[in-house]
């Protein structure tokens, strides 16, 4: 009995210590927003009310752990910069913005947890994220029920947006578009009709690869093989030897940078593939790809979804990013601009519907916000002029095709070239 008590007291001490650790709010934040929960309690259903001096809280679901933490961190940085910029411009009617970042881990379970956390927090106005499509699928039903609109910067699965889900939006372009244009480029521009398709078995990579595959087939091209690898694999020689036995003219890879770079590099060591062209997708449009591929990157094609972005805006963004995080945004992943835009888009929509009531509180009606996001038209973002359609596709611009030359990406076709 005494021993039980002893352990029990230790248990208690540990629990209290833990409570002490989580209880106070992070000291990093500005002292202005003390206990917004109390002041900002939504007293009217369907409305978020923020007391004066409070903050507008935007949730963020980012893949900070899990299979692709690098793009996740990059996307988080993009969102943080957007918040910084918004606040630097004085916020909204004097109300500052705050990003509530959560780890969605690129995983449906974590996405569900994060979604529930946001749904339970009545001060969350809108959400940016999730990073991966799987994670976003976890968010969808919960945010739909909680009436919290979200804008995903990078979930490109065609099924994320639909007529059934009115809170679902994204600034990324659906894979359907990119896959089709890539196929068209390969068959018609490059004139290559025998291609091999490789994907990384992620919903993103496989989905895109299948769209590409059917696109090639529709253009009377031949898909000599369709192979899968795993995210995190580093040795693709056996797979490539097999692909090479069929003698394709081009290998198309649907997936992320590291795998893309390694495949491009290991192709040069595979008999039958020395002269084969390589093409990958926006997941590989990064510095990391160039680094992983090394010299083999030269001459490979990468497609990317981009908008009519102004050079100055991007340069300014890159400079801020470098200054704050000490790395170039392209080092970590491709979707930082989309992330920045998603937050700015949300802020613009909030601005359109928010009003200050008599007692100085900021009132945001959830339903109005949901439709406001859908009706955003001609919003100038980093990725171009954003316009949302009726099912939440807000992606700006179109698909560009780049070729690597002298260690950098140079555009050879696609959006903006015509």
């Amino acid at each position: 009995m005494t021993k039980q008590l002893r352990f029990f007291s230790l248990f208690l001490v540990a629990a209290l210590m833990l409570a002490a650790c989580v209880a106070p709010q992070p000291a990093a934040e500005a002292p202005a927003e003390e206990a917004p929960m109390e002041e900002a309690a939504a007293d009217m259903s369907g409305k978020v009310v923020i007391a004066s001096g409070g903050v507008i809280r935007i949730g963020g679901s980012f893949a900070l752990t899990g299979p692709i933490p690098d793009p996740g961190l990059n996307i988080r940085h993009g969102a943080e910069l957007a918040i910084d910029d918004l606040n630097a411009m004085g916020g909204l009617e004097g109300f500052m913005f705050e990003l509530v970042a959560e780890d969605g881990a690129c995983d449906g379970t974590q996405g569900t947890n994060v979604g529930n956390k946001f749904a339970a927090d009545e001060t969350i106005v809108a959400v940016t994220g999730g990073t991966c499509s799987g994670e976003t699928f976890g968010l969808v039903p919960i945010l739909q029920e909680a009436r919290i609109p979200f804008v995903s910067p990078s979930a490109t699965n065609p099924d994320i947006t639909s007529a059934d889900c009115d809170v679902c939006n994204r600034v990324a372009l659906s894979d359907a578009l990119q896959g089709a244009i890539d196929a068209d480029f390969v068959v018609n521009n490059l004139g290559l009709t025998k291609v091999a398709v490789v994907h990384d078995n992620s919903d993103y990579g496989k989905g895109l690869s299948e769209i590409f595959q059917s696109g090639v087939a529709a253009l009377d091209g031949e898909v000599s093989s369709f192979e899968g690898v795993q995210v995190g694999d580093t040795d693709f020689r056996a797979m490539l030897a097999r692909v090479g036995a069929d003698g394709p003219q081009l290998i198309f890879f649907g997936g992320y940078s590291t795998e893309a770079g390694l495949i491009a590099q290991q192709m040069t060591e595979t008999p039958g593939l020395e002269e084969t062209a390589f093409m990958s997708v926006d997941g590989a449009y990064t510095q990391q790809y160039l680094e992983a591929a090394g010299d083999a990157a030269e001459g490979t094609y990468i497609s990317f979804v981009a908008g009519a972005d102004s050079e100055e805006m991007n340069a300014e963004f890159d400079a801020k990013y470098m200054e704050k995080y000490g790395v170039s945004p392209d080092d970590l992943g491709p979707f930082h601009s989309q992330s920045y835009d998603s937050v700015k888009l949300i802020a613009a929509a909030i601005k359109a519907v928010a009003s200050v009531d008599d007692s100085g509180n900021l009132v945001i009606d959830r339903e109005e916000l949901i439709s406001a996001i859908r009706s955003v038209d001609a919003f100038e973002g980093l990725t171009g002029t954003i316009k949302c359609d009726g099912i939440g596709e807000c992606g700006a611009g179109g698909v560009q095709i780049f070729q690597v030359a002298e260690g950098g990406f140079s555009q050879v076709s696609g959006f903006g070239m015509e």
Partner: protein
Amino acid sequence: MALQSAAGAIRTGLVGFAFLSYLILIGIPGRIGGSALPVLALISALFFWLNLRREAAHHLARNPEQGLEGDEGKPGWEIGANADSDRSYLHALLTARPGTALALRGLLAGLTTGLLIAIVSGIFAAAMGNGVAIQPVLDKIVPINVAALIGVSPGQIVQAEVSFIRFLLQILLFAGAGTLAGLAVSAGGSNLTTAARSGFLAAHVSGPTLGSVGRFAGIALPFVLLAYIAWIGLPGVTAFGTNEGTVRLLLTLIATGSGLFALRLSRPGREQRIVAVLLGIGVVSMPFILDQFQNSVMGLVFIFVMMGLGLNIVVGYAGLLDLGYVAFFAIGAYTYAFLSAPFSSPYISGLLILMGISPDSPLLGYWMALPVAMLTAAIGGVLLGIPVLRLRGDYLAIVTLGFGEIIRLFMLNLGELTNGPRGILEISQPALFGMSPAGVTFGLLSSQGWIFLLALISSALVAFVAIRLNDSRLGRAWFAMQEDEDVAEATGVHLVRTKLLAFAIGATFAGMAGQLYAARQINIFPENFTLFVSIDALALIIVGGIGSPAGIVLGALALKGLPEVLRGVDEYRIVTFAALLVIMMIVRPAGILPSARRRTQGTDPDEAGFDDSGELMEGLVSGEQGAASPELANGEEEVR
């Protein structure tokens, strides 16, 4: 010897420094804010106390004949052997009285820690002041922490304005903490044996009067917490500022966990029954009180309780190490998904059209799908079981691990059957009598609350079945098989049947859990069913106490619940969790609440000493007598 003693103290200080550095790294001081310094000093005092106590115990264990009862000025544990070493003044001081010696050692340890912290934080502060970014991730947190640690507000650090006085203060505080800990260890007066063995906390808490007070406090704690949880859920009531939701979740976890301790502390019989009933009411009312996030976490916790109970049958009862348990979880989830989601594979639709059913509509509701999912998982269990029947130990582990991976890879690659990596979407929610859960409970229950409630009921059911089975001849056969397979067979246990039953029942429970998980997730993907799910399930039963249902609940609370509380720690979440896992195993290898059968290893009083493995905590584990878990106790009561 003085040297030896000093070296020991410095070692303690070094480890303490590492410990505190870790706290700083994960951002604890920043969270505590301005009061970081004294709070950290208290934490280090606790740490030193544990460490000094352990060292003292080690000395005693090594030189038991030099016990201290009635000694005068020559405490045995310091008289190592060498009489020829120089008898300096310090030595004389160290050996004069154990209390003084320990306090001095504590002082030295504290000084070491304080000095190191001061040096390191000085370096950091200087580096920050000069604008050196160490790493994008680190520099977000370190300046704040360092600032908090040296007692300045976060903004100031940029100018590297750190005063010498503050460092001195810090060193003194840690030294004081060490001394305090040293004094605390020797608080038993001259009788070091008792002081070291029982520790000052227990010596004071477990006195006859205080003991019963402690007992009642222990029993009352979960109820107080439950009341508090209900109270802070009321509109307009907040606690501790912005992280209220997290605090409430943490308190919910602690309330549930301490409820199990309360059950153990209460006297078997009427008192225990009353406590159990009240606790049951409290826990069942939780889905109605908690918010959506807390409910979703608790739902997941109890889904993993079901997993743990099922895996416990295979690993804990039958002794078959299964690392591919996730396979059955996946089978359950996918079976339900096939039956209830709009997605339907060409194969299954073809089959349905043959049977004359329209493939478009969801086939079965939750309740009708339940037996199907359970049966499918059970068949999976038997199919896995057959080829591995002859394998033992680690061979079994790796084969089952491979089986789990094979199932996941099939789900990933058999796109036409499972929709591959894109998963199965829009799985229907469990309804009741054709009504949505909100409708049944008049809007009191959110969808996640409903899942939590279902998980609670299902895990109670699973626990009931598991305990009853374990208490029957099947349970005895499992345990006999675990102890000695060949003798069990020669004694009349049908090995094939008994093993397959363990696999099948374990798989059935996992299938149930999987189905509920699919309903909770609404969308499922092959990535939800990686090896880590198996590892989580295994870790939670071992952390909780293998073979003990109450321990499994605690394990699930700790392993699936706490990481959600630690969400605020972002990037440090998994590192912290991993470190806790290792420390937990070292401190309490038998689990938090070990099962009754595991107690037997140390019943021999000679063994319950201070050996390498479990140090003092071993005593706690081995000393637990009586009813292991309330359920087991009830069971035995009825039989006798």
